[in-house]
């Protein structure tokens, strides 16, 4: 097993487990509560599979009111609650403990309102990210944040992790597209913040909820901003024989006044894996950029020409722009299958740090050096336009000690991100994975005020209590919460 500790389960709660389950079952419809070990096993981890622990029970409500009923019971019995969407978090955000109840919101799947005149959609948060855009397809609109996991992940998880994807360079991440939420507080009370208006004059509570990793409330409904679909979009592929030059090209494109919708980066390790897997026809070189631009045909041509002249000053190995839908698919194909392709090479740890775009070349170089020091290969595939890096550290999970080595390497990379002015996580969140690195980015006081905010929303520290904040720092808050129920 690996190095991240979780608190000892509370013996009192374990002893009272049958009563807690009975109370949940009595208050909720048949089939909403799962407690047999065979069934709870499916909820023992999220996409960070190195850590597993089945919860005491899983509740799968269908309405906000049912979430509130379940939450209230957990509140009365002081049982920790782990909110869960689709469980695709890569930071262990939805990892349960033996004394906790998982409240999964994936059955809250209704579309409540589509209003194109006022440009919003209101949904229950268990809908998947992709299905929101599918609902809007016929209206000529879409929902912009597009995490790579969008087929599976839910709006609930997106809000909790402030998720974003390849297109956030132009359209922003979840927090820039979220207008309002309905949510269940740790007491079981239901409240609404925001709505279809473009802001609220009071304190920006919505901004605080978004990205709060299930620490403050359980989000059950969301009002999302929707955007008209562009007339067209086309990618281009630019190959370079050095990582530095590719990084330089990114900075020059951004500086030129153009605003591509996506700038994606893949290094040679990743390119080789992708070629072996899907034969995308990518050039054999040190780094490839995929740049996508939007607009009418003429606007697209204009932008492609400008990017071509920027790239050509840097002597690219290849510059290929798409002319047809098939060519566009071919350019994106390798990028979209990159994670799958890497998976075929063995186990990997997917990191998620951000750095200022200007420090990309330096950071890539230093990661290469660390890779040699640790003797572990690393592949880089990431959203270059906004400096959100995803180094994938390859290791062999069956070789004793390799996971720990990979984790130590990963921690060094994240520290490097902070040292060059970036941060520990751009989109995957802190969860349990980066909890103990928080002290690298924040002082004790920076974190104290964040934990005091948790005290305000969740005085009993029931929601995801052992996540995000280093355990020794949150200990006093958790102890105080335990003393005054």
């Amino acid at each position, binding site marked *: 097993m690996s190095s991240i500790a979780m608190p000892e389960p509370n013996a009192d709660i374990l002893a009272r487990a049958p009563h807690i389950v009975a109370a949940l079952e009595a208050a909720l419809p048949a089939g909403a509560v799962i407690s047999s070990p065979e069934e709870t096993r499916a909820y023992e981890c999220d996409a960070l599979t190195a850590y597993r622990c089945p919860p005491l029970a899983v509740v799968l409500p269908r309405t906000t009111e049912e979430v509130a009923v379940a939450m209230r019971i957990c509140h009365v019995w002081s049982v920790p609650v782990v909110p869960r969407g689709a469980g695709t978090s890569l930071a262990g955000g939805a990892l349960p403990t033996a004394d906790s109840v998982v409240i999964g919101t994936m059955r809250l799947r209704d579309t409540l309102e589509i209003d194109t005149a006022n440009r919003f959609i209101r949904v229950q948060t268990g809908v998947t990210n992709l299905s929101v855009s599918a609902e809007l397809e016929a209206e000529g609109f879409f929902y912009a944040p597009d995490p790579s996991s969008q087929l599976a992940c839910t709006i609930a998880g997106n809000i909790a992790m402030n998720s974003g994807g390849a297109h956030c360079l132009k359209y922003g991440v979840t927090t820039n597209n979220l207008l309002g939420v309905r949510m269940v507080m740790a007491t079981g009370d239901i409240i609404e913040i925001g709505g279809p208006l473009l*802001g609220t*004059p*009071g304190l920006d*509570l919505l*901004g605080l909820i978004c990205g709060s990793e299930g620490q403050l409330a359980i989000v059950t409904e969301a009002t999302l901003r929707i955007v008209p679909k562009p007339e067209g979009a086309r990618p281009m592929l630019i190959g370079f024989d050095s990582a530095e030059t590719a990084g330089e090209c990114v900075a020059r494109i951004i500086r030129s006044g153009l605003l591509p919708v996506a700038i994606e980066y893949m290094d040679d390790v990743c390119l080789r894996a992708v070629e072996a897997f899907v034969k995308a026809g990518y050039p054999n070189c040190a780094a490839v950029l995929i740049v996508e631009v939007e607009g009418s045909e003429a606007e697209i041509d*204009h932008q492609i020409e400008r990017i071509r002249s920027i790239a050509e000053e840097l002597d690219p190995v290849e510059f290929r722009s798409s002319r047809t839908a098939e060519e566009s698919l071919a350019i994106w194909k390798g990028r979209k299958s990159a994670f799958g392709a890497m998976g075929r090479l063995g186990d990997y740890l997917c990191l998620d740090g951000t750095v200022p775009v200007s420090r990309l070349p330096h950071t890539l170089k230093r990661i290469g050096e660390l890779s040699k020091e640790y003797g572990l290969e690393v592949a880089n595939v990431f959203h270059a336009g906004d400096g959100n890096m995803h180094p994938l550290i390859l290791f062999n999970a069956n070789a004793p000690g390799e996971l720990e080595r990979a984790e130590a390497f990963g921690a060094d990379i994240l520290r490097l991100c902070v040292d060059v002015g970036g941060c520990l996580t751009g989109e995957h969140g802190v969860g349990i994975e980066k909890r103990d690195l928080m002290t690298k980015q*924040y002082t004790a006081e920076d974190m104290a005020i964040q934990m005091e905010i948790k005290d305000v929303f969740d005085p009993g520290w029931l929601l995801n209590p052992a996540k995000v904040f280093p355990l020794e720092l949150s200990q006093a808050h958790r102890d105080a919460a335990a003393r005054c129920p």
Partner: protein
Amino acid sequence: MPMRSNDSETDLAATVISPTNEAELAGFIAESYARTAPMCVVGGGTRLQPGTVAAAQTLTSRSLSGIVTYEPGALTLIARSGTPMEEIEAALASEQQAFAFEPMDHRVVLRVTGAPTVGGMVAGNVSGPRRVNAGACRDHLLGVRFVDGRGRIIKNGGRVMKNVTGLDLSKLLCGSHGTLGVLTEVALKTLPAAETQQTIAFHGISVGDATEIFARALATPYEVSGAAFRSGTAWLRIEGFSAQVDYRRERLSTLFRDRELEIVGEADSRNLWRGLRDLHHFSASSEPLWRILVKPSDAPAVVAALHALGGEVSLDWGGGLIWFQGSASGSAVRRAAGMGQAMLLRRGALCDCGSFPPEEPAIAQLSAALRRTFDPAGILNPGLMDK
């Protein structure tokens, strides 16, 4: 020690404290916390009207000034909170960049002088016409440093666009109007300034027509970056590189070919939107001025209710923002706003009503608890947001 003086520009009665660095500021607030001595927090003081906050001391961030870093290639600017907006706008302009959210300048409409600061802009979440498609100030705020009501120096966020490291206090501080902490440094995202712009004007139309035009235009892919209305004219702004602007203007003109329209060229368009942004049309009066957020499709009904109270309106944000100038009572304006949120910006003779709209009890409770967390002694702009 911080400089103390009587500064007639800001407030006649108050002692003005103007710390020159973060440590000095923290020391002053810690000391005020110990004494439970409230303060009025200002940047350039172009906004807070005297008497809004009952405090014998005024704290200004204006001496915490200067751009810390500006990286045009990374689209990031970090500045100390007291930096004048003029200095920042000049730096951005020299690189053909700007803040996409187009912050307004309130001096004309408020008839005040002084230098608006970047900290005041962030504390007010000030966002102009382009908010309709580019987002608000809070959407472009990457990180903050501030001193809370106990004198603790705190940082949050950073200088990168994507960040989920812990709770997002930057958003919370943005729009908190100095009630949670005093900002010392802000990091903002910049964007390339549009090469050119044009505007399509529709004359002689009603508010209902205008909101319909806005809804149709904003549902197109032509990235309309301004949608405003006043005195029977609606305007749609298109920005980008020249060929793009010509193309989009053509498409929009075709879409609205059943209506009479006029094209406003680049120079006039720029002037027009500056005037709309800064509310030059409401600068001749000193009557109360309200900023009302509504669902755009509710705008016609709300405008009708406001007209019944007397006074004048203009619309921005595609109908999502109604400006109302008139002497009706606060409660009458808030009733007319219906589901909308009305905020009082120019007080005029109104003395009995708070600037901020009342909140739902559950929200008010959370907000109050947060203010207590950041400012346990209630010394930062007391009464401003919690009336």
